[in-house]
């Protein structure tokens, strides 16, 4: 099991970000983590990434503490977190210097496929920056990828390129947890969907089974969360 949450609860002061959630993520799945704003999607990913500690309950990644294993996890946060001076070449130096599992050949291929311009991020559009961040993340040979809203605020064509890259780069030896509000566009990716509502686990369904029942992920989204 790559990651496990056992009755995990996270409080921010008086606010509850996640409440008593138990989930397991084995190797080789693309999991959609869906929910309305404030449902706990980002909190769940941050707990698995080791960026947050659970207030109660337990989170394990690779059988140990997420904090100790965070170098093995790829986390793409929802913030537009790139230094303004950074060019794609700087990003390669940054990633190559800090992460042993960074693959520069894969990175160059991703830059090309995602059509990332070779200029400073401060001169890039939001979509271009999003594509660069995704190239940096997917160029790592890791087993667990946590992608928090990689499609947020990005134009349609960039979203398509990002989704195509995720499909192309995904291997069965990897697990991807992806949160998004663009449910209709991303639903073809998912093998499993976790629905969160107000910090609680509302449903955990197999996307293939849904499709076999002639139901779509977005339909179930409306039924479960509507």
């Amino acid at each position, binding site marked *: 099991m790559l990651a496990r949450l056992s009755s995990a609860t996270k*409080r*921010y*002061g008086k606010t509850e970000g996640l409440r008593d959630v138990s989930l397991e993520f084995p190797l080789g799945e693309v999991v959609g983590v869906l929910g309305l704003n404030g449902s706990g999607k980002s909190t769940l990913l*941050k707990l698995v*990434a080791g*960026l*947050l*500690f659970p207030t109660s309950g337990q989170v394990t990644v690779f059988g140990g503490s997420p*904090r100790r294993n*965070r*170098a093995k*996890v790829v*986390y793409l*946060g*929802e*913030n*537009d*977190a*790139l*230094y303004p*001076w*950074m060019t794609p070449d*700087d990003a390669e*130096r*940054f990633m190559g*210097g*800090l*992460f*042993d599992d960074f693959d520069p050949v894969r990175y160059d291929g991703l830059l090309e496929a995602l059509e990332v311009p070779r200029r400073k991020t401060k001169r890039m559009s939001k979509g271009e920056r999003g594509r660069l961040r995704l190239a940096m993340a997917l160029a790592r040979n890791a087993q667990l990828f946590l992608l928090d809203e990689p499609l947020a605020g990005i134009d349609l064509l960039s979203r398509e390129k990002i989704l195509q890259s995720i499909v192309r780069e995904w291997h069965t030896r990897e697990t991807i947890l992806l949160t998004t509000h663009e449910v209709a566009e991303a639903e073809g990716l998912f093998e499993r969907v976790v629905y969160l509502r107000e910090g609680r686990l509302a449903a955990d369904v197999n996307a293939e089974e849904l499709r076999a029942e002639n139901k779509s992920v977005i339909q179930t989204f409306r039924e479960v969360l509507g």
Partner: protein
Amino acid sequence: MKRLKTLLWVEYRRSRVWAAALLGSIVFWWWGLLQVRSLELINQLEIRAILLLIAASVGAAVLVLMIGRIRSETKDGTHQVLLMTPASGYAHVVARFGFTVSVAIAYYIGLMLMAWWAIGQAGIPLVAGDALALTLGMPLYAIATFLAPVLAWTVLLMVYISAHRVSGPNWIPGTVMVLATPLVFEKIGTGIYRILYRLPGWHVFEQLQLTLSGQYPDDSMGPALIMPQEPVWIMLLVCGVMLALAGRIWQEVEG
């Protein structure tokens, strides 16, 4: 080592505009010193000393601001990226501190060179060998005993404040830490004073002699520039403790 080198490079890229502006300001201060020519020699030295003191203070303020820019990183998310790297919190803190201290050394050596020039202009003779030793010795002494602890404290302060960002209001620890700052430095200063002056004739280490022995036949400047070593070691130890604490907090901080 590869990670530390990369973090130093990130720090250089992140702060190079600040560093270049600070080092470039040496030209401005030099220009300022050159303007003081029409006065009597002794007045020239006084005004130039005041100018250099202002330059030293401005430099310290800029360096503190440069190393303390952690809050903007937590806001824009780059701090999260750094937290997710395999480099330890200690490496992040050491890279930040190391780069800023390197800039400080370059800046204060520049100021010191100007100081010796000003002293020379006032008619006070300096042997070339002494000037070189003092140019290196004085800034390093000042950085070790004053600036480095201030920078280490700033890093600790900012890391501690940002640690409370996620789960609670960070203005409370921020206010407490800022208010505690003068108290902490007063306690350290009192401690050093007690070691040095309450125990007359007793020293843990040999006194640090910044002048080269025998270079001043009349011994006119020598005694004034002999400094105790204890403050250097005490403050470097204090720096190490503060950086270790900051690194430990960085390891545990939520992002």
